[in-house]
C-alpha cells in the first residue's frame, strides 16, 4: 500500500456502523475512548472545495503496525447519513419489529419490549439531569471565580460577593454590596479601601487573576483536550449533518470544557457560555448513549439524541426550554423528526428543572437577566425598534466579516503559532481596558441584567440616576415612575456606556475563536443591550423635553411612564444577536421566555426581522455557517440558492475531458484487477454494473469495504489469491476445478444507491443531497417506475404479506 501523508489515523477501532459479514474483526480493546467517541477517523482536509466528494480524500495507512488493526479510513469519515436516517431507521425498524413480534411469546420478552420503548425517554431524562447539574455547577463556579478577581469572603472562601453579604445587615440602600465580610484585595493587602493605592492594588490584582485564569484555561485545553476550544456549535452542526469528528464529544473534552469554560468566563474576557454549554450537553448525551444498546450502535438514533441535547444546552443557558428546542430545530439540526421534537422538549424541561433546583442564583431564577417589567409600549416606538434592528443587522454583518478575517489571519499567519501568548495578550488587553469602566468590569451577564432593569424607586444604581422629582407624596406610589430628566449620575453612566459599546464591539471580534471555550451570545446581547439602552434613554429624554410635540402628545403625557429604556435594551439585544447568528423564531421565543410575557413579541419580531433582512443584504451566512465555511467542513448549507440553473449532466462526472467512469463488473474481474483499479484511483467508492457493455446498475461499493474485505479474505479465507474471481452476484457459477475459489462480496455492496437522471435540474439534485444527507448519487437510465399508489397498496397489504424470504433460506 502506498503510504501517504497521514496526520490522521485510526487506532483500530471497532466499526460500530457496519455489520456486514466480511468485516474485519479487530481486537476489541476496551478502549474507553473508542466507546465514548463516535467512531470515525480523525479528520484531515487536504483537499480544497472543488473536489467532488467521490474523488476526495486520500487513503491513510496507520502509522506503526498493530496486529489485526484496520487500515485507516478515508478522510474524516463522512458517514453517509443515507445509511443512517433511512437504512439506519430501517435497521432500527427491523429490530423493533423483531422485539414486537417476540413480545407476544413470554412476559420477559414483553418487559423487554416495554423497556426498549422507554429507553429513549430514560435516556432523555438522564441527559437532562446531567446537563442541568453540570450547568448549575458551572454557573456557581463561574460566579465565584469572577468575584475572586475582586476580593475574598472572610466567612467562607467559597462564597461569592453577593452570597457573602447575604446575611449581613450592613448593606445600605446606596451601597448594596458593601459589607465587612467581603474584602477587596486592596483591603486585605494594604488595609485601605479608598485612595489611589487601593485602586492601583485592585487593578493589579484584577489583572493578575485574569491572566492566571486565562493561562490555566489555555494550558489545560492544550494539554488535555484541544477540541474543547471555541464555541462548538459549528462543529456540532457538522456532526449532526453526518460528519464524524472523532473525540469531539468525548469524556475528556467534556471535563476540560466544563473546567476551562468557568476559567475563561471568569477571566474577564468578552465571551459567553451558551455555545460551550451546547457542546457540554452534547458530550453528556454522547456519553450517556453508551449505556443503551439501542443508541450505542445506531448512528442515526444517536444523532437524534444529539439534536435533543443541543436543545438542552440552550435551555440551561437561558432558562428557555421552548427556545432551546426551536434553536436546535432551526440552527443546529439537519434532520429533525417530530419524535425528536417531543423528546427534546422533555429533556429541556428536565434540565431546566434540575437547574432550578440547584438554584445557582439564589432566587429561583434560571437566568441572571430575567426581566419582570410589563410596561406597555406604543406603536410610535416601533420606529426606534426598527432602528435598533437596522443597527443589529449592520453590527452582525460587520462582526462576521471582521471575525472571519481575524480568524483567517490566525489560521494562516504566524499569529496562529502562539495560541497561549495570544490568549494572554488578549486577556491583558481586555483587563487593562475594561477595569476603569465599571460597565465593562462587571461580567457580560451582569451588564445585561443591569441594562434590562427598569428603573424604579428601589434602584440606586448610576443608570437610574434621574433627578428626583419633588412630589413624592402622591405620585410615585408603587414601582412605576414618571419619565424624569436625567441627572448627573445618568449622564456619567451614558458616556461610560458609549465607551463600553465601542470597546465591546472591538474586543469581541478578536476574542471569539481563541483557543479557550468561548461563546458569542452574551457579548452580542451586551452590545445590543448597550445600544438599546442608550437609544431608550435618549427617547425618554426626548419625550420628557418635548412632550408637547406631535409625536408624543397623544400618548405620553407628562407625569406618565411612557418609555421604558429596559425594553429598548432588550430589543437591542435581540436585534444584535439575530444579526450575528441569523436566528429568527428561536431568538424571539428565547427572549419572550426571558421576559415571561407576550407583550413584547411585536417589538422583538420587528427588530429581529429588520436585523435579519439588513444583515442578509450583506451576506447570507450567519456566524456559525461562516465558521463552517472557513474551516472547510463538508456541510451543505440548507439555505443556499443557485444563481444559474444548470442540469445534473453539467456537474456530474466523468466530464468530457475525464477518463471514463471506473466501474466494477458484477463478475469477471479478478482480485488483482480490482486491487489495481482501486489503487490507481482516489475514489472512495465504485459503482457495480452488470457488465462492461451494459452499464446497468447493480449497486455501489465503498473503497474501504473493498479493501478490508480483500485483505481479510487473503488472510483468512483459504485459497483466495490474486487470480481469484470477485463476484458480486448472489449465485456464482461453480468454479473450474483448477481455478482458485471465488471471493464473494455481495454482502458489502449497497444494493439501493440513490439515483437521479442526467436531466434533473441541479436545484433538485442539491435538494436531494441535502434532505437525504447523501454523499454521492448515481446518474442512471430507466428501468421501471414506482408510484405513490403502489406504495399505498403495498402498505395496505403489509399485514397480509408473507415475510420476505432471505435468499440464503431458499
Amino acid at each position, binding site marked *: 500500500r502506498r503510504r501517504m501523508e497521514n496526520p490522521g489515523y485510526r487506532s483500530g477501532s471497532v466499526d460500530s456502523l457496519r455489520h456486514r459479514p466480511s468485516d474485519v474483526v479487530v481486537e476489541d480493546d*476496551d478502549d474507553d*475512548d473508542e466507546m465514548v467517541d463516535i467512531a470515525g477517523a480523525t479528520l484531515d482536509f487536504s483537499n480544497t472545495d472543488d473536489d467532488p466528494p467521490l474523488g476526495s480524500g486520500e487513503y491513510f495507512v496507520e502509522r506503526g503496525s498493530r496486529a489485526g488493526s484496520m487500515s485507516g479510513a478515508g478522510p474524516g469519515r463522512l458517514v453517509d447519513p443515507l445509511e443512517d436516517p433511512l437504512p439506519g431507521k430501517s435497521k432500527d425498524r427491523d429490530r423493533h419489529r423483531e422485539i414486537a413480534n417476540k413480545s407476544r411469546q413470554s412476559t420477559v420478552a414483553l418487559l423487554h419490549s416495554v423497556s426498549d420503548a422507554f429507553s429513549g425517554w430514560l435516556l432523555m431524562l438522564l441527559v437532562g439531569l446531567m446537563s442541568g447539574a453540570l450547568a448549575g455547577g458551572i454557573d456557581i*463556579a463561574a460566579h465565584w471565580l469572577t468575584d475572586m478577581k475582586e476580593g475574598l469572603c472572610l466567612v467562607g472562601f467559597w462564597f461569592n460577593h453577593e452570597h457573602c453579604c447575604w446575611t*449581613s445587615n450592613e448593606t445600605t*440602600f446606596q451601597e448594596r454590596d458593601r459589607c465587612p465580610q467581603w474584602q477587596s484585595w486592596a483591603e486585605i493587602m494594604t488595609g485601605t479601601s479608598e485612595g489611589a493605592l487601593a485602586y492601583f492594588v485592585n487593578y493589579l490584582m484584577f489583572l493578575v487573576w485574569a491572566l492566571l485564569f486565562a493561562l490555566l484555561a489555555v494550558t*489545560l485545553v492544550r494539554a488535555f483536550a484541544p477540541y474543547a476550544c471555541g464555541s462548538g456549535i459549528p462543529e456540532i452542526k457538522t456532526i449532526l449533518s453526518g460528519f464524524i469528528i472523532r473525540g469531539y464529544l468525548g469524556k475528556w473534552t467534556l471535563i476540560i470544557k466544563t473546567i476551562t469554560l468557568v476559567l475563561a468566563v471568569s477571566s474577564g474576557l468578552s465571551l459567553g457560555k451558551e455555545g460551550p454549554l451546547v457542546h457540554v450537553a452534547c458530550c453528556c448525551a454522547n456519553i450517556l448513549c453508551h449505556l443503551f444498546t439501542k443508541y450505542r450502535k445506531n448512528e442515526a438514533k444517536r444523532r437524534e439524541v444529539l439534536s435533543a441535547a443541543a436543545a438542552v444546552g440552550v435551555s440551561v443557558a437561558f432558562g428557555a426550554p421552548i427556545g432551546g428546542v426551536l434553536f436546535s430545530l432551526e440552527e443546529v439540526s439537519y434532520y429533525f423528526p417530530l419524535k425528536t421534537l417531543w423528546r427534546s422538549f422533555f429533556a429541556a424541561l428536565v434540565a431546566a428543572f434540575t437547574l432550578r433546583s440547584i438554584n445557582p442564583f439564589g432566587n429561583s431564577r434560571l437566568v441572571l437577566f430575567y426581566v419582570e417589567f410589563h410596561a406597555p409600549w406604543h406603536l410610535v416606538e416601533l420606529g426606534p425598534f426598527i432602528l435598533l434592528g437596522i443597527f443589529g443587522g449592520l453590527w452582525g454583518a460587520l462582526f462576521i466579516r471582521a471575525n472571519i478575517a481575524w480568524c483567517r489571519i490566525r489560521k494562516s499567519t504566524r499569529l496562529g503559532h502562539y495560541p497561549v501568548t495570544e490568549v494572554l495578550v488578549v486577556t491583558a488587553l481586555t483587563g487593562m481596558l475594561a477595569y476603569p469602566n465599571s460597565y465593562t468590569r462587571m461580567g457580560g451577564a451582569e451588564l445585561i441584567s443591569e441594562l434590562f432593569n427598569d428603573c424604579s424607586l428601589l434602584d440606586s444604581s448610576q443608570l437610574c440616576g434621574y433627578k428626583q422629582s419633588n412630589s413624592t407624596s402622591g405620585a410615585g406610589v408603587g414601582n412605576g415612575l414618571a419619565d424624569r430628566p436625567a441627572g448627573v449620575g445618568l449622564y456619567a453612566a451614558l458616556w461610560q456606556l458609549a465607551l463600553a459599546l465601542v470597546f465591546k464591539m472591538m474586543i469581541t471580534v478578536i476574542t471569539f475563536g481563541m483557543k479557550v471555550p468561548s461563546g458569542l451570545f452574551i457579548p452580542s446581547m451586551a452590545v445590543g443591550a448597550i445600544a438599546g439602552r442608550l437609544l431608550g434613554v435618549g427617547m425618554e429624554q426626548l419625550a420628557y423635553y418635548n412632550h408637547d410635540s406631535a409625536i408624543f402628545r397623544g400618548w405620553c403625557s407628562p407625569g406618565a411612564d411612557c418609555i421604558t429604556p429596559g425594553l429598548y435594551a432588550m430589543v437591542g439585544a435581540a436585534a444584535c444577536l439575530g444579526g450575528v447568528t441569523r436566528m429568527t423564531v428561536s431568538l424571539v421565543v428565547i427572549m419572550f421566555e426571558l421576559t415571561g410575557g407576550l407583550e413584547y413579541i411585536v417589538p422583538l419580531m420587528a427588530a429581529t426581522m429588520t436585523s435579519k433582512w439588513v444583515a442578509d443584504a450583506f451576506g447570507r451566512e450567519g456566524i456559525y455557517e461562516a465558521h463552517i465555511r472557513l474551516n472547510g467542513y463538508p456541510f451543505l448549507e440548507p439555505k443556499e440558492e443557485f444563481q444559474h440553473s444548470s442540469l445534473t449532466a453539467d456537474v456530474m462526472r466523468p466530464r468530457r475531458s475525464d477518463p471514463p467512469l471506473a466501474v466494477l463488473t458484477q463478475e469477471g474481474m479478478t482480485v488483482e484487477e480490482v486491487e489495481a483499479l482501486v489503487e490507481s484511483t482516489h475514489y472512495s467508492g465504485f459503482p457495480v454494473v452488470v457488465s462492461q457493455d451494459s452499464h446497468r446498475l447493480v449497486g455501489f461499493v465503498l473503497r474501504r469495504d473493498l479493501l478490508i474485505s480483500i485483505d481479510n479474505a487473503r488472510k483468512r479465507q483459504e485459497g483466495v489469491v490474486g487470480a481469484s474471481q470477485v463476484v458480486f452476484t448472489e449465485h456464482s457459477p461453480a468454479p473450474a476445478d483448477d481455478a482458485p475459489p471465488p471471493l464473494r462480496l455481495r454482502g458489502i455492496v449497497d444494493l439501493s444507491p440513490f439515483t437521479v437522471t442526467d436531466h434533473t435540474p441541479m436545484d433538485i439534485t442539491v435538494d436531494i443531497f441535502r434532505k437525504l444527507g447523501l454523499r454521492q448519487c448515481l446518474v442512471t437510465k430507466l428501468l421501471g417506475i414506482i408510484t405513490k399508489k403502489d406504495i399505498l397498496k403495498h402498505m395496505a397489504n403489509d399485514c397480509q404479506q408473507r415475510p420476505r424470504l432471505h435468499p440464503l433460506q431458499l
Partner: protein
Amino acid sequence: MKSVFLLEAFSVACFVLLNQVTAKNSEDIRCKCICPPYRDIEGQIYKQNVSLKDCNCLHVVEPMPVDGKDVEAYCLRCECKFEERSSATIKVTIIMYLSILGLLLLYMVYLTLLEPMLKRRLFGHSQLIQSDDDVGQPFANAHNVLSHSHSRPNMLNKVEHAQQRWRRQVQEQRKSVFDRHVVLS
C-alpha cells in the same frame, strides 16, 4: 471506561440529591425588604431570616422608622422578596471544582515534567528518540513507552496502553487544532 462513567454518574447524582436532602440551614432563607427614600428618611434595606408567610413589611422592617399613620404609606413603597439559597450546595460545588482543577493541574505537571524524568531514569538516555518538533510538548514520549511495555501483560500494562493511546489521540488533536488549524480555527 465504565467505571469512570459510573463514578461520574454517581457524583452527579450525589450532587443533585445533596441539594435536596441537606438540612436547610436557617441562615439560608431570608426575607429582603427594600424601602426607598420617604420624605426625609433615607432608603434602607432590611433583612431577616423569616419564613415565607412572615415575609412582609410589617414583620421585617424593624425598627419601623415612621409612626403609626405613615406606616401603611411607607410599607406600600417597600418591596419584600423571599429568597433562599443552599450554602451547602455552593460549598460542595466549589470544593469539587477546585479539587478537580487541582487534580488536572497536578496530572498535567506530572505528564509534562515528571514523567520524562522518570522514564529517562528508568530507561536511560539512549532509548528515547524524540523528534524535533515534539520537544517541549506534553506527551512527547507517547510512542516510545509503548515499546517497553511488552513484558508485563497485566492490568498495569493495560492501563498504560490505554494511556498511551489517549496521549497519541490528544497529540493528533493538538496537531489539527493548533498546528495545522484545520479544525476550530
